[in-house]
Each structure stands twice: as structure tokens, then as C-alpha cells.
């Protein structure tokens, strides 16, 4: 589905990503974990064409996209839910969702859009209840659901989520990630960027650890959760004897 090779991104003279390589198979949920400033958001922006790569290859469904504009990558089925939600506060929940379907509308698929709206409401019943409310009045968790739902309206082949748990209460995080898991079960492919490593690796099959712009670890979620570096840096776990309690 997605294959990134040797991606370099720099902001001026500051290198943000150094020869990052990763892949996401169809139907897979892959997590990118790493500290603040590791380059996670930049990575997603480079994939969607929001920032220009200095070098490297990005292939989306077999097609080279590194030189494409954002509209073109979206048309190819790549949808990003940005960090901090960024919903249209002065529009209703329903209008926010319909805006996410503009690619579909442009293709004249009105009936599909109606079906997709139903699907999003089934995934996030609270959005259905608040259909007519202004998005700016929603809670943080609800806004995250709205932003995710809006991305799903484009029927993305690859859904990318940037820090969906940011600033949300643990229970809400759990709800959001459960929806991510259920989206994946229905066949979507998800690339999830998270500082909350435990939550992310809980829904992902595999993950990459990004540190100062480089991938330092790749592995199954179970392997990453059992790695002491990951435990110390991202799970807030001190070196102790409780590693035995982790899933093997």
C-alpha cells in the first residue's frame, strides 16, 4: 500500500528526517512512535505532499507520489487527520463530514456519500446525535471523532492519523483507538502517529520507533512493547522486574 524509501526532509538547514524507510501493507495498522520533535508529523506531511521531501521515494499503491501535490495524493486515496483536529468550528458536524467527501462529490457519487455518512454515524454515534451542532461546540474527544469521520468520508485507501490521543482523557483515547481498530477490521489501512506508544501499539500490528529523524527500531507491536528502550522512553516504565508481565 505505502512504501517509503530513504526519505529525507529538511526545513532550511535543519534536517528533520534522515533516510527514513518504512512500509504499510494493505489492511495493516502501523504505528509510528517517538518523542516530540522526532519527525513524526513531518513524516505524515511529506507522505501527503504538505512538505516537500529533499530526497527519497514514496510509493502509494505502487505509484510514486513524492513530487505530487496534496490534492493529487488525496485523490489517490491518502487521507490525513491532522494533529489538533482542525475541524471547521463554525460549520455543523454534518457539513464538516460532507466537506470530507468532496473527492466523492467531484466524481458524482452522491449515493455513496450518503452511505458513507451513515457508516461514520454508526462508528461514532455521538456525531449522529450532534449532527446539527456547530463543530466548535464539541468536546475535544468529539472533535477528534469528527476529524476522523471527515477523513473517512473520502473513502481513503490509507488513513493517516496524527496524534489522535493528544490532549484527550484516557477513556476517550480508548474510544478513539477502538474505532481505529474497527476501521482496520473493515479493511482500511491505517498509519498512526502517536506519542502514546502503549495505546498506539495496542491497536497496531507493527510499529516503527523514530528518534531524531531516524528509524531506530522496527518490529511487531509485541516486540516493541517488550523492548526496554521503548519501555523506558515511551511507556514511562522504569527498569524493574515487571517485564515478565508483558505479553510475550
Amino acid at each position, binding site marked *: 500500500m505505502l512504501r517509503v*524509501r530513504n526519505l529525507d526532509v529538511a526545513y532550511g538547514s535543519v534536517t528533520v528526517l534522515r533516510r527514513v*524507510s518504512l*512500509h504499510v501493507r494493505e489492511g495493516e495498522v502501523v504505528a509510528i512512535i517517538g518523542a516530540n520533535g522526532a519527525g513524526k508529523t513531518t513524516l505524515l506531511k511529506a507522505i501527503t505532499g504538505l512538505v516537500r521531501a529533499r530526497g527519497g521515494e514514496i510509493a502509494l499503491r505502487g505509484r510514486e507520489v513524492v513530487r505530487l501535490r496534496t490534492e493529487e495524493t488525496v485523490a489517490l486515496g491518502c487521507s490525513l487527520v491532522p494533529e489538533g483536529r482542525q475541524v471547521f468550528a463554525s460549520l455543523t458536524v454534518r457539513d464538516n463530514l460532507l466537506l470530507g467527501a468532496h473527492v466523492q462529490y467531484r466524481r458524482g457519487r452522491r449515493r455513496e456519500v450518503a452511505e458513507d455518512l451513515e457508516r461514520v454515524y454508526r462508528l461514532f454515534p455521538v456525531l449522529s446525535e450532534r449532527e446539527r451542532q456547530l463543530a466548535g461546540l464539541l468536546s475535544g474527544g468529539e472533535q477528534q471523532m469528527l476529524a476522523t469521520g471527515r477523513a473517512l468520508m473520502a473513502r481513503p485507501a490509507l488513513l493517516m492519523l496524527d496524534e489522535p490521543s493528544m490532549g484527550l482523557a484516557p477513556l476517550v483515547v480508548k474510544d478513539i483507538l477502538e474505532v481505529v481498530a474497527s476501521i482496520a477490521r473493515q479493511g482500511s489501512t491505517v498509519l498512526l502517529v502517536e506519542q502514546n506508544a502503549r495505546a498506539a501499539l495496542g491497536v497496531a500490528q507493527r510499529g516503527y520507533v523514530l528518534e531524531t529523524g531516524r528509524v*531506530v527500531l522496527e518490529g511487531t507491536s509485541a516486540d516493541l512493547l517488550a*523492548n526496554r528502550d521503548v519501555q523506558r522512553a515511551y511507556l514511562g516504565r522504569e527498569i524493574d522486574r515487571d*517485564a515478565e508481565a508483558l505479553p510475550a
Partner: protein
Amino acid sequence: MSPSSLAYWQPEAECLDREELEQLQLERLQATLSRVSRNVPFYRKRFTEAGLDPDELRSADDLRRLPFTTKADLRQAYPYGLFAVPLREVVRLHASGGTGSAAIVMGYTRNDLKTWANLMARLLVASGLTKDDVVQITFDYGLFTGAFGVHQGAERLGAAVIPTSSGNTKRQIKIMQDYKATALVSTPSYALHLVDALVEAGVNASALSLRRALLGGEPWSEEMRRRIEDHLHVTATDNYSLSEVMGPGIAGECLERAGLHVAEDHFLVEIVHPGTLEPVPAGEPGELVVTTLTKEAFPLVRYRTRDLTSLVQEPCPCGRTSVRLRRIAARSDDMLIVKSVNVFPSQVEAVLREVLRAEPLFQIVIGRRRALDEATVLVAVSQATFFDEMKRQSELRDLLERRLASELGVSFEVKLVERHTLETAADRRRVVDLRKL
């Protein structure tokens, strides 16, 4: 096939599409280089000295710009100098190459052990084993990796493990009979020794439950395979083990027995010319060089194994997509040419091990008298043997000389010496070549 038999242990990895495998190798290689250059001063220094930035590695082919790591580097790092994680994250230690500071110490994290068990389980399944097998492991359960490596893999598979460890052949045979062992794990020379010992004990091999033999740890010939299979009534498969790299599980034969499948999602293999150290053309023989892709505690970058082999790139009928190693013929560092015959100390070792039924301590001395090579093997024997009757001593010497001549195709003079003579000798190299002086 019995209902419980599997085609593969981890089909998604063993049969991975080549293009996806190469992507995965690149990702893991880059991650490994990032980790070693951050965590292991040795590698950081090496890369700096060579003027290389590991961040510049953009393809597996770029690997050839990185310096090799040798056994001497590993020895110098004794005991923990090359570990990429703090010792508290290590849950197992093994060692190879004797005791003292000539030894190489390998560490394993919890994840390393899990990977190792899975890779070994892959080889067991590839050799036709199932969870219903009863696996008798005759490798030494000491610091060596062999026994523990196979042990974990067999348990992971769900087979029943008999950890008999090495030695006491009579007991091995009794256990093999009584416990109904179905799979033998041993060195090829020990398997041959068992063939003789069964005859001696009057045990009919066809009355045993054995059906598979997983053999490794030393080079062996197709001729040896035929003898072992005919006499033990087993299917024998070869596997490649190198403790420094991990232990058994790196590569092994499937039932096609046409090369050893490499676990390429965990190890990147290259073949280089042992003289020029340049990559050889595809399929040509040379020295095997291994880079680990997932090891956490003891990663290795371009480790020169000294084992000579070549790669088979063609797809295997078994469905596994990995490259295969042709069976290891010899080691590059110690081949001797004696009276125009190529001789490897490992062959001498195998003969001695078989005859003495123990790990031999020996030294090969090659000299020259009147332009002719003279080859001598000093073989350490126990004090009891050494002070035994002259007759028995000379019988042993004659037997060794005969066996060496028939196995190696060149005659060696055998001198029996006391153990401590070799242990305390000034020159303790396994091979002393006086011709070069």
C-alpha cells in the same frame, strides 16, 4: 504428512515476496545501523575512521562500503564491549571460543531469545518435524549456543525435548530406545559414531523410533549423509550455526535438501572473495559475511564468518523465498595445502572427535624436510591413556593415522601427548606452519 505437520512455521515471513523482503531488509538494516552507531562505541569509531556516515546507507548494496567486523574484533571486545544494550536488558549469555579472554561472549535480550526460538522452529518444521516429535539433543548444554538454540525452537514448536546433552553414548542409546526419540540433533560425526555404537551395543537401528536427524556444527559430506541415513533410517538435514551471529537457526535445509534457507528477514548475507574481500559474482563461491537485522543485544555489522559457501538465488520448490547457502565446505582462514592436498583443521578435528569420542585438543604442525611436506598432529590424550600400555597407545595412534589418511587423502604422523603439554605450550595455535618461516 501427518495431520499435525506444517508446511512452514512463519509462512508470512518464510514465503515473503522478494520485493517486500528487500524493503524490510533495508528498513531493518538502517535501524540496526542507527542503533549500533548510537550505542556501540566500537562501530561508531569504525564508521568515523572509515569516513562513513551510516545515515548515508540507502540500499543493501551500500553495505559494502562499511568495514568488516572480524573474530579478532569480537575477542578484543571481551566480554561486553560490543553489546548494544545495557547488561540489565540481557537475559542470557553464551560464549564461544574457549575460556579466558580468547572467548567471545554473546548476549541476548528477551526479544532476541524469542526471535531465536522462532527461527529455530522454522528450521525444525523445514526438516519435517512437528509438535508430535520427541527431540533428543546431544549437543553440550554449556556455554555453547547449539543445545539451547535447538531446545528453545523445539519447545516453541511444541515438540518434546530430551536434553541428554553430550557424551555417554550408551546412555544416549538407552534413552533413545526407551523414550522413543523420533529426532536426533547432533553433529554429523556424532551421528556416525552412534551408527557404530548401535552396532556395538547390538541394537537394530530399524527398531528405533528415529525418523529425522538435524545435523550441524561442522562441515560434512553427502557421503556421510548417505551413511547416516542408511544406518539410522532417518532423513538427515543440514543446518548452519554460528554462535557469534546467534547460534543455530540462521540457515538450514528444507526437505528438498538443496541448499540451506537463510532467515533473510533477520540476517543479511553477502559472499566476498576471501582474498580481495570484494563481492563475488552471483552464485560464485566465497566467504560468507553476515549482518544481523533484528538483534538487540549483540548486533553484528558485516561479520566475516570465514565459512566458504555460495548463494543459490533460484526459487526453491518448497515455496520459501529466501536465498540458500550451498553446504558449507570449509573455512577460509585455515585451509592448509599439505602435499598438494587441501586440508582443513576442521576435518582433522572431526576425525579425532569421532575416534576419541570427545572434544579433541590438538595441534597440527606442518614442516618441510628435503622439499617435502611433513604433517604431524599432536593429539592430547588423558593421563590414563598416556601412561597406558605401549600396545594400546600404538593401536590408538595407528587407528588415528589410518582414519586421517582415509578421510583427508594425505598422511599425517600422529603423536600422542599429555593434555597439559598442549595447554601450556608457548604456541597454542591449532595450526603451526613451519614452512612459512
